[in-house]
């Protein structure tokens, strides 16, 4: 290739090479934006079918979710969980793995956080307990991803199937634990006893109030900072470290990675461990930070919603951050919805979630192909003039 090129006469320098590579705003903004609009348009049809106005619905959802006095801090609380589960999908994705076990990893991590907190909440103060909660969430989340990772790497068992199975196994295990061994002896709710007040960090509301910022009460807590740090760490890991380069190489071309001397086993296992640890951190936000106890089915689909967040965010940490905020707002908005429109159930979020994943990922080329053609035509025109 290079020899053939050198034998040719030197090419006339062009002002701007025409390639079919899209600029960042096409991949990062324009195409996902159109896909999101399409998904919302179809969701609007559902709302119309229910007999309500889509615009009024969307207005209620967004106004409620973004009002600093009311929903905004809850939006940020949900976004915190979604950043963790979205990043989990992202890291695995760059290594060519589709981890749909975030739900189970987060749930199992909830067990880890609960066990650590219930064991140590009498002896540790709040900052130390916070660190122990983070540590146990990371360990348990990663542990739950280890078996699927190992089976994929050494036994060829597809990670998608095994992580689905592990979601159900985690649910069974936690159901068992919460039905008996770690269930609170007081009250009817299926949950652990509350973690001692002294070992818990205060939520965001009093801190913000002390700084003179008035917010509505919510579960928002320090975990948001941990999530933002994770956004930065994942970015740094993927694009500025040897390990990240190795993971992405393996994800793009496993055979090339093998020739470069990378071990497939360690790539798969490392990617899945990081992914599971990130998903597990959701337990810090929820079990330690928000509820102060482990509640049955506390994950509530946030692990799955992380898939939509990652795919909508184009598997880039900043994209994950943006789409976690968007989905956090939609999630909070869907809980507000019921007060204004009792006919619309809050599960509308699942419809939107499904449609976003469908249009932004599964049907990606439906929007991408015509838009890329449009962009290239426009570029060719600008050269012709």
């Amino acid at each position, binding site marked *: 290739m290079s020899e053939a090129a050198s034998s040719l006469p030197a090419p006339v320098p062009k002002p701007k090479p025409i390639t079919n590579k899209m600029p960042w705003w096409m991949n990062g903004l324009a195409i996902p934006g159109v896909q999101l609009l399409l998904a919302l348009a179809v969701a609007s049809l*559902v709302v119309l*079918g*229910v*007999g309500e106005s889509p615009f009024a619905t969307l207005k209620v959802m967004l106004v409620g979710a973004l009002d600093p006095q009311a929903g905004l801090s809850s939006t940020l609380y949900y976004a915190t969980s979604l950043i963790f589960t979205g990043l989990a999908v992202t890291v695995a994705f760059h290594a060519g793995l*589709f981890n*749909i076990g975030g739900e189970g990893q987060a749930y199992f991590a909830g067990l880890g956080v609960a066990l650590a907190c219930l064991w140590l909440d009498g002896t540790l103060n709040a900052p130390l307990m916070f660190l122990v909660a983070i540590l146990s969430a990371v360990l348990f989340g990663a542990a739950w991803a280890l*078996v699927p990772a190992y*089976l994929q790497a050494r*036994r*060829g*068992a*597809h990670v*998608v*199937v*095994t992580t*689905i*199975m*592990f979601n*159900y*196994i985690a*649910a*069974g*295990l936690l*159901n*068992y634990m919460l*039905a*008996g061994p770690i269930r609170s002896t007081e009250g009817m709710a299926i949950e652990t006893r509350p973690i001692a007040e002294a070992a818990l960090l205060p939520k965001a509301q009093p801190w913000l109030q002390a700084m003179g910022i008035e917010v509505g009460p919510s579960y928002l807590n320090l975990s948001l900072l941990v999530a933002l740090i994770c956004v930065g760490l994942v970015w740094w890991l993927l694009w500025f470290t040897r390990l990240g380069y190795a993971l992405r190489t393996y994800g793009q071309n496993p055979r090339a990675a093998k020739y470069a001397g990378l071990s497939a086993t360690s790539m798969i296992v490392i990617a899945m461990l990081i992914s599971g640890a990130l998903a597990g951190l959701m337990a810090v936000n929820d079990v330690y930070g928000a509820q102060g106890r482990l509640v049955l089915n506390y994950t509530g689909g946030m692990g*799955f919603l992380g*898939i*939509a967040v990652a*795919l909508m965010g184009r598997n880039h940490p900043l994209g994950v951050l943006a789409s976690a905020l968007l989905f956090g707002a939609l999630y909070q908005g869907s809980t507000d919805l019921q007060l204004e429109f009792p*006919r*619309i*159930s809050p*599960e*509308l*979020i*699942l*419809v*939107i*979630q*499904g*449609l976003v*994943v*469908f249009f932004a*990922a*599964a*049907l*990606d*080329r*439906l929007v991408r192909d015509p838009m890329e053609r449009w962009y290239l035509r426009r570029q060719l025109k600008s050269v012709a003039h």
Partner: protein
Amino acid sequence: MEDLILNLFSILASTIRLATPLILAAMGGILAERSGTVDIGLEGKMLVGAFAAATVASLVQSPWLGLAAGMAVAVAMSLLHGVATIRYKGDHVVSGMALNFLASGLTLVLGQAWFEQGGQTPMLSNEQRFTPIFLPGADYLAANVPVLGPFYKTVLSGHTILVYLAFVIVAAMVFLLGQTRFGLRLRAVGEEPNAVDTAGISVPLLRYQALIGTGLLCGMAGAYYSMSQNAAFAREMTAGGGYIALAAMIFGKWRPVSAMLACLLFGLLTALEARLQGQSLPWVGEVPTQVFQVLPYVLTVILLAGFIGKAVPPKAVGRPYVKER
């Protein structure tokens, strides 16, 4: 002794009842995957099928129209999966997940808006649903023939038409995949689509046809939940059955009869779960019900790990077919 046998028979009977929707969905999964399309959307298709079937049956008073509606809606969802994976070459797992989310959301939003019963559809009367069929002479044989008589009455008789249909469909699948031109082409397209294309047969068309079959079977499985096992649709009523069917399909190594046996095994586990709740077994003591809930998944993982034989999926499964290569 008499009691023990009767107990055993009633466990077998509920095994068959519990396995029926799994068998139907697993057969649907086999059709899709043998043709090269990964389908983790069995669950979603069953759910919309169950919802549509119960809704239509309650409106038009006919179980058969309800069944037809459930199957039609599931086929529509299956074709959406086809458009995404075949026409637009999208990721099969992502598309299946998306449709599962959509199915849980749609059934709840529409159910709440239309019926305002917390996502439930109106109760179906016996005329609107499928009721058990008692085979001729069941009572007479049960009274006069030891062991085999009660077996006939309890295990073989007294199921709804969909249960019998499910087993007929397994036989039909064996014939279809093994003996017919369509079946051979279907299997070929899941292994070597290039060869099929070279022979002048349309790869997309075959895959769409297979997905229509998947939709029909999943719709029927869904209708079984809402019109045969129960008498209304309830929120998330398939409760992971689609994933158990997926596990059974893998456990059965993508073969109809083996998958059916896996479904029966998983059905037996569920039947035992209900039977043994709170009871103490000899040697092991009381077994937590959750053990029975997770066993299908644990067994499938062990199988996938290669400790019980080897599960090899169709070679071209999950890969989009690009004609010009």
